């Protein structure tokens, strides 16, 4: 009997601890950026990029945020350098088959768990916005469960790093 009571107490304490930890994760954090104004996010939204992004190897922590009027685009913003942000599109918004193939590729290359995997495509916006392109060659992979991310450069050159955003046919039909 005694041991049952002790166990209950321990369970109760650890439950409380978990609640505190959960609250900590949900706590609203803010960062201000000249470029994006004030951005709010929660600690559990921080994704660590062990290798940064290609060419931005020093940037190790990012959040994906929505900014008013940008939908369906989101922003991948570097927490420690909030002036650096990349406009991204969820791969599913571009082409469902492409997204599926990237999931398979991520699993093959990194053993990333497909259930928690988010695939984003970085967009490049030149002065003439009609010339905007998306980088299908190097999507950003985020493991929402482990809070990690990385940019995957595809070995094969079947997808372009500068695919025109304004295309009629689906990506997988016209690569």
């Amino acid at each position, binding site marked *: 009997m005694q041991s049952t009571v002790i166990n209950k107490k321990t369970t109760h304490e650890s439950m409380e601890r978990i609640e505190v930890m959960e609250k900590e994760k949900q706590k609203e954090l803010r960062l201000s950026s000249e470029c994006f104004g004030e951005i709010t996010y929660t600690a559990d939204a921080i994704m660590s990029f062990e290798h940064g992004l290609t*060419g931005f190897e020093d940037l190790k922590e990012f959040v994906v945020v929505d900014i008013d009027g940008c939908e369906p685009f989101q922003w991948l913003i570097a927490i420690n350098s909030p002036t650096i942000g990349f406009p991204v599109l969820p791969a599913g918004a571009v082409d469902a088959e492409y997204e599926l193939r990237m999931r398979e590729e991520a699993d093959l290359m990194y*053993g990333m768990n497909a259930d928690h995997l988010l695939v984003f495509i*970085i967009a490049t916006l030149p002065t003439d916005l009609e010339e905007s392109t998306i980088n299908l060659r190097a999507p950003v992979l985020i493991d929402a469960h482990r809070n990690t991310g990385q*940019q995957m*450069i595809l*070995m094969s050159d079947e997808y372009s790093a500068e695919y025109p955003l304004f295309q009629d046919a689906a990506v997988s039909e016209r690569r």
Partner: protein
Amino acid sequence: MLVLTRRHGEAITVGDDILITIVSVEGQHVRVGVKAPRSVPIYRSEVQERIKLENRRAAQATQADVQRLASVWKPKAD
């Protein structure tokens, strides 16, 4: 940088599981075979440079640019 001389058909081992073989040599062209675990990405060096450049260009976008683009580009309904 370590520089090694190799003939056609000879190879170089890197670490435990990477094998680089000189497949053929014809004038200026050298064909190289690379055998490595699937988790080791292999690309021509210019590919990485290309992605670096593209990332730098992408990081130039402003909020206003993206808002304007978002007003004209919509995802295709599946």
